[in-house]
Structure formats: structure tokens, C-alpha cells
């Protein structure tokens, strides 16, 4: 059997900060422009793709993040069973991509989800992130695509003092190491 290996597989705790990798998580990139695409996504996921920049819509199982006027990022709230990992992708692909409404691309292993929680997580990010979090941190569901220590990330405000940060897998070990080193000085 092939073994599943996520890149970090760790949880670290510091005063007022907890950082953990949460995998495997289903992640799908959705792209489309027309109304039929939006309707189909809404029907398949029971979530309407948000149209306001840097916002998200969520239900119990899934989160749909606005990335650009024709691009959304879908991820599951909970870890998935590896054997079921293709189910939603196949269904969306058949309904959207094959019907020429847009594109559906599995990016589950392209991104790594890192959960940050605690009252000092924004102080931690300010060590390497130029984004102004002052409004963001009070807006549940807010999304930003920014840089942390020069690395592209997507950050989703999941709850008060709780963020999900998505980083490309190849950068994830470096960013993980940097986050932990930075947490020492917060």
C-alpha cells in the first residue's frame, strides 16, 4: 500500500499561540464566470459562491473562499477519509467542467492547511506579513491572499482568534519552521 505523508504532522503550543497542521483536508479550486456556474456550484455544495472580494461562505462541512472575480477555493472543515477524497471532485468535475461551465481542479495536496489559534496569532503574523489585520481580525469569514515571510498564503478568519492558513506544500516546511521560530519572540 502507498503511504500517505503530509509534510508537517505536528502541533506546537506557545503562550497564547497554538499552531497545527490539519491534513488530509479536501481542497478544490473552482473557476467560472457565468451565472450557470454560480447556480451549479450553489446547487452542488449548498453554498453560493461569495461575490464580495476577500469574503467567504461556509456551511457545516465546507468553506468557499473568494479568490478573484472568477475563482474560488473550496475546503472541507474536517479531515477527510482518504478513500472518499475524490468523490466531491468527481461530482463537481462532471457537473461543471464536463458541461463547460467552468473548471474544477483538485488542489488538496497543492495546499497545506495550518490552523493558528490564540490571542497572539496576529502578533505572530505581523513578524512577517505586511497585511493590515485590524479590520480582518474582527470580520469572521474574511479572506486575504498575502505573504508571510515572503511566502504566498491564503488566510481565512475562521473564528475569533482562530485562522486557517493555506500554504503551498513545497513552502510549508520552511514556513512552519519560521512560524515556530517567530513564536519564540511573541
Amino acid at each position, binding site marked *: *500500500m*502507498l503511504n500517505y505523508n503530509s509534510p508537517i504532522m505536528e502541533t506546537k503550543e506557545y503562550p497564547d499561540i497554538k499552531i497545527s497542521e490539519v491534513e488530509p483536508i479536501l481542497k478544490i479550486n473552482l473557476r467560472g464566470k457565468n451565472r450557470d456556474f454560480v447556480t451549479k456550484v450553489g446547487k452542488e455544495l449548498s453554498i453560493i459562491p461569495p461575490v464580495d472580494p476577500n469574503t467567504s461562505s461556509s456551511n457545516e462541512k465546507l468553506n468557499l473562499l473568494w479568490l478573484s472575480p472568477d475563482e474560488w477555493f473550496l475546503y472541507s472543515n474536517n479531515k477527510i477519509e482518504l478513500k472518499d477524497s*475524490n468523490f466531491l471532485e468527481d461530482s463537481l468535475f462532471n457537473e461543471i467542467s464536463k458541461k463547460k461551465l*467552468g473548471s474544477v481542479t483538485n488542489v*488538496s*495536496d497543492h495546499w497545506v492547511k495550518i490552523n493558528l489559534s490564540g490571542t497572539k496569532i496576529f502578533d505572530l503574523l505581523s513578524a512577517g506579513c505586511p497585511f493590515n489585520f485590524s479590520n480582518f481580525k474582527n470580520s469572521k469569514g474574511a479572506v486575504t491572499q498575502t505573504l508571510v515571510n515572503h511566502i504566498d498564503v491564503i488566510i481565512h478568519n475562521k473564528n475569533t482568534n482562530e485562522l486557517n492558513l493555506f500554504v503551498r*506544500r*513545497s*513552502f510549508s516546511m520552511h514556513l512552519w519552521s519560521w512560524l515556530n521560530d517567530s513564536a519564540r519572540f511573541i
Partner: protein
Amino acid sequence: MSKNLRIINSKYIDQTSRISFKFDGKTLYGFKGDTLASALLANDIHLVGRSFKYHRPRGIMACGPEEPNAIVQVGSDASMTEPNTRATEIELYEGLEASSQNCWPSVNFDIGAVNNFFSPLIPAAFYYKTFMWPANFWKLYEYFIRKSAGLGKSPTEPDKDIYDHRYLHCDVLVVGGGISGIIAAKTAAKNNFNTLLIDDKNILGGTTLFQKNECFKINNSYSNEWLKKEIENLKSLKNLTIKTRTSLAAYHSYNYLLARENLTDHLDLNEKKDKIRQRLWKIRAKKVIIATGAMERPLIFNNNDRPGIMLSSSIKKYIDYYGVKCGQQISLFTNNDSAYETAISLSNSGVSVNSVIDIRDKSNSLIVKQAEKLGIKIHWKHTVVNTNGYKKINSIEIMKLSDDGTTVVGKKMKEGCDCLGISGGWTPRVHLFTQSGGKLKFRDNDNVFLPDKSELDQISIGSCNGDFELDEVTKNSVNLINKFLKVNNNDYENLEIISSKEIDKKNIWLLPSDKPLGKTKPFLDFQNDSTANDVKLALREGFKSIEHVKRYTTTGMATDQGKLSNMHALGIIAETAGVKMGELGTTTFRPPYTPLTFGAIVGRNVGEFFDITRKTPIHDWHAKHNAEFENVGQWKRAWYYPIGNENMHEAVQRESKAARDSAGILDASTLGKIDIQGSDASEFLNRVYTNAWSKLEIGKCRYGLMLNEDGMVYDDGVTTRISENHYLMTTTTGGAANVLGKLEDYLQTEWPELDVYLTSVTDHYATVSICGPNSKKILSKVIPDLNLSDKEFPHMSFKNALIDNIKCRVMRISFTGEHSYEINIQSSYGKSLWEKCFEAGKEFNITPYGTETMHLLRAEKGFIIAGQDTDGTMTPVDLQMDWIISKKKYDFIGKRSLYRSDTIRDDRKQLVGLLTDDPKEVLEEGAQIVLETKKQPIEMLGHVTSSYFSPNLNKSIALAVVKNGKKLKGQKMFVPMKNKTINVTITDTVFLDKENKRLNA
């Protein structure tokens, strides 16, 4: 035994906490709250260093960042020592060690002082004029010039301290915690602006904090007492963040500012450990209020540089704030009222003031009258014409000024003193304003440059805006702040202020002496030893621009960046050249305002975090198997896998032989991968690549060459048609992000009509490439259900497959010329798949190979690497890849450029193969190729782009670009090297298996 010049009247120094420190090896004592400068002065030490050029004795002159003389070396540890640190800004801590710079063997007896005797022979630009000839002596000159250049000693080992960076956003940033800054910060915070107040000192208050004088009162309180209450009130403001010991270093466009916070520099040695030393704040402010105050100017007269000659306001701060007497017989020399504040402070502290020498005819201001009431002697309309004392001033010579101020008249008087306070007026600190792009205006009546126009949301208030009187500072600051923040600030509108008003003003940039100018030394730039004479010499020699005079004389080019010298240099130039100062302009103020440590600039981007690294999912396996890694973009790619004591050459020879003889395995996960979907995907590829894509069958792969708009090769890779409207494009490793950006740009701007969507999946897939004659056998063990027959699965095709129930895509494509397969699988299974392939290949001696072997194998086949065999100037035709350019397609990126007169020239550099006459001789990549070696100048016809020793061919092979190379097959040429000339022959680019038998085996 040094004297103790401390008086017990300071509230800012904790005289119960004694601190020991060492200066020039001698143990001395100060108190908590002292700076190194104040502690040295308390120990009656003025002489702290030697000047750069003439090695003249120099003493502490100021009390802040403008200090030009007291530049010391801190620490002696090879990793922690720091040169060029201003003693006026070093807070004293237990264990501090500092030493004088630019002197040998000691500051008291310096051999270099001999330069002073030869000073008439080494005027401004001496170096430029002297070391020009003979030209071949430069190497000798350079050795000595480099040896004598610079001040202090750099650390020789890595810095052990920790530094950090932080981003910070605020509504209002107030720079400067003096009286106007405090008014601004309080107003902003009270009106719900998220406000940040920074100040470079350890406590807020600026100079008003120690201004206890009847002439300066606010609401019937001394101004210092009033301000203390205001500072206390700041603590209750929720929207206000205060950062002390934080110096603003740079003010860039769009209100982006950099500030350095000193976190541990003031702590005792044992308290500093494992803490961040300095933090660089990267601030984005919606609005900026600059309240940085003003600097006192010196006066320019003969021998104005002796230890003991200090700025008058600094003497006042040392006595009022630090409780330190700078001397016991102090004279003051001024052209304005400020020196009288010092005289009164000294008098109130019981220090004898010899006299005040004032170049003005008279002044009737409140403060002067108060000084007169105290019995302080004033020499009106007089000037100092000379000073005496080698290592410390011991007397001054005074004469009366003529009515026009150009000469001196009457008898010379001599006055004994051990300290001379000088005051030449005030210069607003407009550095930050100009760094941000602001334009200055000139105010004639007191000769100051002031902030004028700015494109940014900022204002300057207080004395940095030209308000020097207490009542002006408060009234004008409040008005400006209210207007700037659009608020009604009532707190400060009805203040009752008593303020002495300076009515009589007089300024002489270069004060006259009883000696001819050439016989005097009126210093302008104390650190770089440039004098008024040097500036006048530059003007005589034809320099007119202030920027040229600055560089010719080095005025303003030392570590203090001419904070004290620039205005006088401008004044003397304007006066001598007969132009108005306002028209002359200033030199450019560049960041940082005060020197930053390299540590603060670098932050934690050192060691592991020096550069970002990307790793493939199989990285750990490579590391475990002894791989050496190569940086490709940010990726760490396995370069080669040495066994035992193998060097790179030996490892690569073994790896490439194994790949050709049996099987090799390569981690190709770093290749860029772009998922392309949409009903116009085929048309999109037609427009992107030079070849045709419409007829590519589903399940087939095709190599494509992507050009820039100029027709030059940009990137290449294999694209696979997954289904009708679905492709997977691969790009080069280094080009992945740029290619995606470029294609997305085209879709959004040039081809919005196309129904195409791109998604990067580079990191989603791990790619395991198996090549060699036994690759098919290995793959059949890994995926037994997959039909690998040539008919079912020919070269340049792909199959979906399952490995242990995990989906994967297998492409039969080759970059080595061998029969090979690339398996793409979700990255989380990449390492496990690699191990499975490796295990399956063991019976075939499967050999992992790295990028170096990959390069060798592809070079044997004549396959190019975009970026190595191309350099942005090669067209497909230059690469002898004419076959890849579709003649039928209407258009593709770069098509038009392929038919320009320059791109169809026959004599362009073209890709060729090269064989050396000696098969063992391996050419150097980058080596030049020539046809003749005797005729000079030798014409360079091309260069080697790739070169290897091929174990499979048992000879050296190379690819090269040569002018008109296509037509030169068989031509003998030469590669001249340092010690020999190598004979080569131009060949075809394919060295191995021209018939592609191995590929289809």
C-alpha cells in the same frame, strides 16, 4: 585622577544606581540614565577620539544623533564589537566597554597626529589630485588608501545577537515625543485615531522636559512641569501606542516608514542574553505628523574643533538633565538667544560662566535681560578669533567685529576657559520630510530650510517646521493638527504662555579672524576634517553645484551625514558664489537618518531563514540517501548522490551510465504544472505555443516551445491532453510562476473571449521519472494492470492508472532519450511511490540520479534547457528547431517577431554541437569560441552553453552557440583558455541515438 563633575540636581538620573564601565581600558563610573557621553563628561573626559584626516584631538560636541566627534568602538568581542557608535546615544549599562577610534597607540598619544603638521600640504581633493599617476602605481596606492580609510574596526565573526522585523499599521504616526509631538499624539488618540508615537530617547519630553525657566511658562507652571503632566495623561489613552528608544530611519513613498527600536542595548550584559537586540518596524501610516525638532548649529571660526568646544544647548542638557558640568569655567559664544538659556541654567546650578560673546549688536529679549540680571558678562558685537589648548581648550581669543561683520577690529582679549559653548542658531530637522519626497522652501530672516510641498498625507509641526518660540510651537502646532486631522482640539486652545521672544537676529556663516583665512582652520565637517577653506578652494577650482562641492571636499559625507556642517557649507558657497541660499538648494537627504546595524536590516533572515526553500515530497528520501542538493529557483533539487568518497564527476558518470544501461530514477516534482480547462483550451495552446495543438488526440502528449513577444524562446515543456477540454501543461522548474502569470495576463487582457481557466497544480503532484532500457519492466511491477505495449502506450502518450487504489497519471515521455515514464501522483503519496519504484527496480540496479546527470543525459541527445542553452536572445530557428514553428497557424505569441530583419539574419548565433580534438578535454561552460587566435582583436564568434564528459560515448561533448553555426558543421575552431588553446570541431547537436531507437525500445 579625573575630577567628578556631577552635581546633584537631576531628576532623570538615578544616582542611587552606580554603573561601572570601561573607556579606553580604564574603569569609570556613571549612573543609571546616563549616556556614555554624559558619564565621560562627569569624569571630566572630553577627549574621546581623533579626526579622520588630520588626527586632531576631538571631544564630545553634542548630546544627540548629530554628534560628529564622539564616535566610539563598543565592545571588543570579535562578533559583537560595533564601530562608529555615537557616545551621545549609548545608554550606559553595567559592563559597557568602549574605546576611541582612529588613533594609535592611544587617543592621548596618536602617531597619526603628524598629519596635522602636514595639513597645508593635504587640502581638499588631495587624493584625487595626487594618486592619478603613474597609472600603474594605483595598486600600491590602493593598498595604503584602503588601510587608512574608514573609522573603527568591523566585527570579524558572525553577529550573535538576534534581530527582528515587525509590520505595524496605524491611522496616525507621530514622529518625535517633544512638546509638539505630545500635543499631536494626544489630540489624535483622543479623537479615535489609532495613533503611534515614537521617540528615539528613553523618555518622552524633548528639550522642554528640562526647561525650568521663568521665561518659559505654560498656564503659570514652568513648561517642564506642565509637560510632565501631559505625558502622564497619555497613559490613559487607549488608542495610543508609545514606543521609546525607537528611531525613525527612513520615510518612503505612500507613508511607508522604517523605525528601529532598541530593545536591549541599554540592558546590562547579563540581561541581554537570548533577547531580541533591535527590531525594525515596517510602518504603514495613513497620516504622518513629523515633530522631530531642530538641531543647534555650531559657529565657524578658527580652531573651532578643540575638545571642550560644545554646542551650547548640549551643555544645558548635560547640566539640567544629566546633572553634569561640562566645565568649571565656561564661556559661551552665540549669534542668538539660546546661549542665554544655557548661561542661566549654568548659573542656577552654580557653574561659573566667564562671559557670553555675542556677535549681535544688542538683544532686548526677556531671556537676555534675565541673564544680565544674574550678572553674566556679555561681549556684544564680538567674535572668537582663535582658541588654544591641544587636547582640551584652555583659552579663547576675542575681538570686536567691524560694523559689516567681515573683519575684526580693536584689541585682542584672551579669556581662560575649560569649555566653550557655541550656538549658531537652529536648523529644523527636515530630513524625514525630504526623504519622503517633500520639497523645501527657504526662510531668509533666520536662514532655515522649511517643509513646503508634499504629495503625501503628512505635516511637520513644531521647530522642525520653523517654530522656535514656545508660544509659536504650541499655537501653530494645534492649528496645524486640527486642520490635518479635521478635528476641533480644545485642550490646548486657551493656553497662557510666557515665552521669551528673539527679536534681534544676525548670522555670519564664516566668522572673521585677525589672521588671513589661509592661516586658519575653521572646521565645517568635524568628522571628515573639511574646513571652510576647502569649500572655498573647491569654488576657486570651478565647482559650482553643491553636490559636486560636497563630493570634492567630502563635506557632509561622514557617518553623521553632515548634520552640523551642511548648512554652513551651503552658506559659505552661497556667499562666495554670490547666489541666494534658497536658490542653491540642499544636498540630498537619504535614509537612514542615523546609521542602522546590518542586523536590524537583515532581521531574522539569517541562517536557515536567509532564503526561502521549497522541498519536494520526496526530499527526505534524497537527504537520507546522501544527496547533494542544488538550488533551482527556490527549490532544493537532488543534484547527485555520491556513494562513499565519490566526487561529483564520479557520481554523475556512474548515474548516467546506469540510466543508459539499465534504469535510473529522477524526482521531477519541481517541474511547473498548470491545469488547463475550458472549451477554448486547444485554441489557447495554439496561441501560446509555436506549434499546432488542435489535432492532438486525447491521451497524447506534445512538446511545445513558448516565445516572448520578441520571438525569443521563453519556456518549454510537454503538454498532455487529458480529455476534450482538459490539458496538463508542464513548464520549466524556474519558469513556472512567471509562465502562469504571463498566461493569466494574456487571458485577462488580450484574449478575454477565450473560455479557458488555469490552475497551478505544481505542488499537488509529485512526479517520479523512471528511464532506461528496463523502465518498462519496473513500471509493470509497480502497475501490473497497465498495458505497456508500444501499441497501447506509445511514446508521447499518457494513461490514467491506479496504484494501490490511488489515482495517478503515467506519461510516456522522455528528457533523456531513453525509454521512460513519468508518474504523477498526489504529493502525499509521492515519497511512498518513489520507494515502491525503487524497490521494484532493485533487481535492475535502478539508480537514483540528480539534476547533473539529467543535464548530461539530455545533452547527449541534444535537448535544450531553456535558460541554459538559451539566454533570451535565441529564436527557435537559432536553436535549429525550425520544425516546431507552424507555418499554418494564423498567430502565436512572438510570431511577428520571427520575421523581423534581425531575427532572419543568417549570421545570428545558432546552436551547434562541439567535439574537442582531445576526447578527454572537457570545455568550460561560458568559454569563448574563435576562428583565429593570432589576429587581434580576436573576434568572439560564440560560447559554450553546456559541456560534459559522456561516459556513454566515452568522450567530451558540448553544446554551443556560434555565429552562422548552422553552416559551419565540420569547421575547426578554437577555445582559448588561460593556459592553453583547445581545438574543437562543430558538429550536429545530437550526439547519441540519432535514430531514436532507444526512445522506442
